């Protein structure tokens, strides 16, 4: 750039300044309005959307599908799409390092690459087209980031669309842009470039829209996250009921294990006693649960040691133990296991039976336990499974399940017991039994709405 042009630019700028505004107050006023707007928006987002809960990091959980922060998603998706290219796709660093690297260098050195002093957009068709396609790519790749890229029958079409929109169109558009700018002259070149950029932009947006429309993102299983202390205690109690009760008992007071294969007669210290709770820190207890005490008979439960509990779940159990048994901690107010029933009200599976089953029955009635193949982890299983199925018959007060929870065991013709009382080592409280009876007699509705339809409430209870 010669001195002449520089002078011209500076003169023009002086002229613009003379006919402009003052930084204070004209510009600052606009800045302040925008800052205030941003601040309010952030407060609204923090209040009404909040920060989604997530379970604690679990390095041993290799099943977790990793996903970067959203503003890196476009790069992540680009890598995935690039990986579909035969042969070249194997060389990851080309897409992960080389291409972004080139982009960055071009971006940094832009003022020296685009040297002409022209500033009006009509004289900058090539740079604006290149940037435009880049921005559209970033946005569209971000939008389709979670859509599966697989070549089985269900996803073949949408995967192809993704490759076309995320890789082929931008590459072809860039090639065309440079071809036009080198081969054609002024007017014709601009026309060609505008057409290329416009067309590829529209195509990319259209293809992205069809991917969004045609290939629904597979539902990711919501992981339950207990955020408040009461939630954590309740979650911990449920997990304790499922995993620990058979050896340590409802209240952690068992000293001699009974009825557990291979461990009958094993002596344990009561884990609800202050000997254990005062001497072990939370981290130690979490460690014992994670890795077990193999030589003493305590099995490992953490995923890190091949068990089925995540780091967060083990934390919940420790929290439950502390707040329920350690006399230095005060139990927070926790919600009842199920809402009390009014006279004539019918309980539902969702709200009443599921939490009761979780608390009192699932420890034995799930896969891999001795239970006559009677599983109780879902509505279907509770109604249909079991060697003596049906264990539940709608409207039948003599249903097997109702008998065994009311301390009547089931005998065969010779008077031998086939099914003992349930749960085997304790007795359900009358209000829990009442829920079961009412539920079976009313026809075993699954949902709250189903239950409400069957209800004939005399007088609602105070809640």
């Amino acid at each position, binding site marked *: 750039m010669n001195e002449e042009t520089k002078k011209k630019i500076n003169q023009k700028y002086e002229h613009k300044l003379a006919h402009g505004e003052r930084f204070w107050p004209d510009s600052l006023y606009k800045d302040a309005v925008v800052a205030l707007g941003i601040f309010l928006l952030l407060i609204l987002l923090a209040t009404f959307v909040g920060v989604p809960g*997530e379970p604690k990091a679990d*390095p041993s959980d290799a099943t977790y599908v990793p996903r970067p922060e959203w503003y890196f998603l476009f790069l992540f998706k680009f890598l995935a799409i690039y990986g579909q290219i035969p042969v070249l796709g194997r060389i990851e660093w080309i897409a*992960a390092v080389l291409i972004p690297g080139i982009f*960055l260098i071009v971006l940094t050195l832009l003022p020296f690459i685009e040297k002409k002093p*022209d500033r009006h957009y009509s004289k900058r068709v090539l740079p604006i087209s290149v940037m435009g396609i880049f921005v559209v790519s970033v946005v569209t790749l971000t939008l389709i980031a979670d859509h599966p890229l697989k070549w089985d029958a269900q996803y073949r079409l949408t995967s192809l669309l993704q490759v076309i929109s995320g890789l082929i169109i931008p590459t072809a558009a860039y090639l065309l842009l440079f071809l036009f700018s080198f081969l054609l002259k002024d007017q014709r070149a601009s026309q060609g470039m505008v057409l290329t950029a416009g067309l590829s932009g529209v195509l990319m947006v259209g293809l992205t829209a069809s991917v969004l429309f045609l290939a629904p993102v597979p539902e990711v299983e919501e992981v339950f996250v207990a*955020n408040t202390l009461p939630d954590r205690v309740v979650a911990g109690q449920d997990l304790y009921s499922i995993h620990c009760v058979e050896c340590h008992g409802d209240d952690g007071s068992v000293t001699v294990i009974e009825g557990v294969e291979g461990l009958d007669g094993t002596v344990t210290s009561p884990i609800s006693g202050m000997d254990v709770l005062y001497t072990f820190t939370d981290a130690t207890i979490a460690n014992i649960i994670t890795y077990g005490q193999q030589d003493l008979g305590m099995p490992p439960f953490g995923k890190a040691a091949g068990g089925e509990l995540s780091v967060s779940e083990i934390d919940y159990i420790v929290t439950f133990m502390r707040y329920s048994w350690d006399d230095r901690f005060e139990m927070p107010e926790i919600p009842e296991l199920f809402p009390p029933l009014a006279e004539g009200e019918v309980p539902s599976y969702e709200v009443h039976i599921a939490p009761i089953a979780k608390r009192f029955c699932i420890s034995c009635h799930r896969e891999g336990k001795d239970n006559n193949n009677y599983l109780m982890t879902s509505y279907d299983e509770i109604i249909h499974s079991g060697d003596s199925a049906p264990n539940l018959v709608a409207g039948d007060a003599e249903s097997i399940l109702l008998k065994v929870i009311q301390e009547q065991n089931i005998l065969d013709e010779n008077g031998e017991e086939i099914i003992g009382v349930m749960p085997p080592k304790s007795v359900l409280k009358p209000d829990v039994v009442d829920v079961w009876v009412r539920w079976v007699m009313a026809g075993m509705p699954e949902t709250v709405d189903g239950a409400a339809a069957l209800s004939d409430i005399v007088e609602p209870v105070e809640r």
Partner: protein
Amino acid sequence: MWRKLYAWLEDRLGLEEIYKATLDRPEPKGNWWNTLGSASLFLFLLQGVTGIFLTVYYTPSPDHAYDSIQYIMNDVAFGWLIRGIHHWGSTLMVIVVFVHMVRVFVTASYKYPRELTWIFGVGLLLLTLGMGFTGYLLPWNQRSYWATEVGTRIAGSVPLIGDSILRVLRGGPDLSALTLQRFFSGHIWIIPALLAAVIGVHLYLVMRHGESHFPDKDD
């Protein structure tokens, strides 16, 4: 009385000069797109303030990071608000900085005499993304742990020096307490310090050359 005090201060501090140099500057006719730079600055400062509050309770160790965040969210008065603003502020800052860059590009404001302003600007974009990358690990939850695990692995795919980069980022071959410590230090000291310094230079250059005017047909 006030006049006297003012005159005394003016004499020692040179307030008038500062006022002339910083606030009372002529500018070309502005437009709303020109607020994006100061919006980035505002977000940077807001992230700084909320971030400082968060460090009061946050503990950068794998054993306590998660619980300390839970504590901030549930037990500290207005902790949820501070964290919420910091969380959403990071997202918004990336968007605003990016759009600021696009606007500067479209108006070709990086041309003579503002080339250096642009180059330092690219540095700011990278540093802003660096803030996001390091901050994401700090809550030590599943999402952040695995995002960092893939993020650092991708950085490790650089030919020849990839393995060294990976080790420097993670503080060893695997994600560990050391990684968290490192990301924490990067997130609250190293990157913000760089960011503040580069913003300083960036703003000096913006003031020195003045805001560019909106290009018209002859430009």
